[in-house]
């Protein structure tokens, strides 16, 4: 048993642990992502050598419909639902996790950010009148956009997608 316990306390602790054999399953254990096998399913090696290596355990992100792809090496916690050894899970990222992709609500469309390019269709410019002076020089432009222009975000994040 633990070196922290003396000979007299050990039997008492053993008695308590025999009544609550799953007490160790109620903790969260820090570990490192070894591999991502599928959407929100990862292999984790915990720091505590008393725990096994986990394969393809579910990743609980905390937001419904979120799916993430991370690089190996990310830090995360491993726990057990209800303290039940049948249901391990990983959740709660440590700092420094490298995200390769993240999607919400099914994904499929890159998320737009401030600074991303926006495309404006040429048909929206038809009410503009360009007048060139007969003697040459800069053109003058009159008129303006008519109605609601058909604009479209033409590029977005390479990592974050929305559904």
């Amino acid at each position, binding site marked *: *048993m633990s070196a922290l316990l003396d000979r007299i306390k050990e039997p008492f602790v053993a008695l308590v*642990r025999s009544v609550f054999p799953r007490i160790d399953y109620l903790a969260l254990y820090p570990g490192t992502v070894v591999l991502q096998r599928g959407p929100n399913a990862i292999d984790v090696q915990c720091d505590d050598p008393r*725990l096994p*290596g986990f*394969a*393809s355990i579910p990743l609980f992100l905390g937001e419904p419909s979120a799916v993430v792809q991370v690089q190996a090496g990310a830090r995360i916690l491993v726990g057990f639902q209800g303290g039940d*050894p*049948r249901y391990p899970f990983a959740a709660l990222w440590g700092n420094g996790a490298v995200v390769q992709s993240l999607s919400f609500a099914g994904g499929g469309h890159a998320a737009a950010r401030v600074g991303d390019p926006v495309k404006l269709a040429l048909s929206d410019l038809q009410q503009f009148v360009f007048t060139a002076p007969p003697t040459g020089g800069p053109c003058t432009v009159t008129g303006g956009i008519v109605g609601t222009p058909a604009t479209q975000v033409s590029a977005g994040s390479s990592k974050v997608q929305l559904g």
Partner: protein
Amino acid sequence: MPFATVAGLPVVAGKLCLPRAGNWHGDFALDAASAPTGKVQVALAEGELVFEGTVLRGGAPYQTALVRVVGGAGGLTQDAAAKFYQGVTLQNVLEDVLGDADEVLSGTVSADVLATQLPAWATIQQPTGEVLSSLALVPGVPWRMLPDGSIWLGAESWPAAAGQAGWQLLQDAPELGRQILAADVPNLLPGQTFGGRQVSYVEHRIEAGKLRAHVYYEDA
């Protein structure tokens, strides 16, 4: 032949504790100048009852051997290896964990219990007995070490103890839910029914050549 022996050595005094859930153990003073080690048999009633166990610790400081014996191979106090399983049965994990501890699963465990499906299972490095208790929680049944040194788990069926007419009631303590009994062959075990009451714990106390069974009941 002495009434009680451990590894064939006469028991001067001692007790054998048989819980309904968990491993049994016994503490004995033996008429021997050195303590036995390793696997031993605890024999009662001149060999009529035999318990297969292992000496956990002992010595002979006063030319009398003093030993603690635990049921089975003594592997339940050893740490189990950390392992992760997926898509297995309770039997798969039980046999793996007990095999590592040199312990044996009883052949009397029901097939239904053994076939319990586990979508996954994580064994943490902890005493094998704790792993066993944790596994038994899945079907929600107790486990215990049988006299033959094998491990049983399952739902209690409370069979009636054999030879009840041969027991003599020496003391009744209803406030404690306990009776003190004597018999030529003290073959009463936890998990049985005695006098219509479910037996929870039996402690055989051996002193001055006599054995007294302190029997605690579930309905207390």
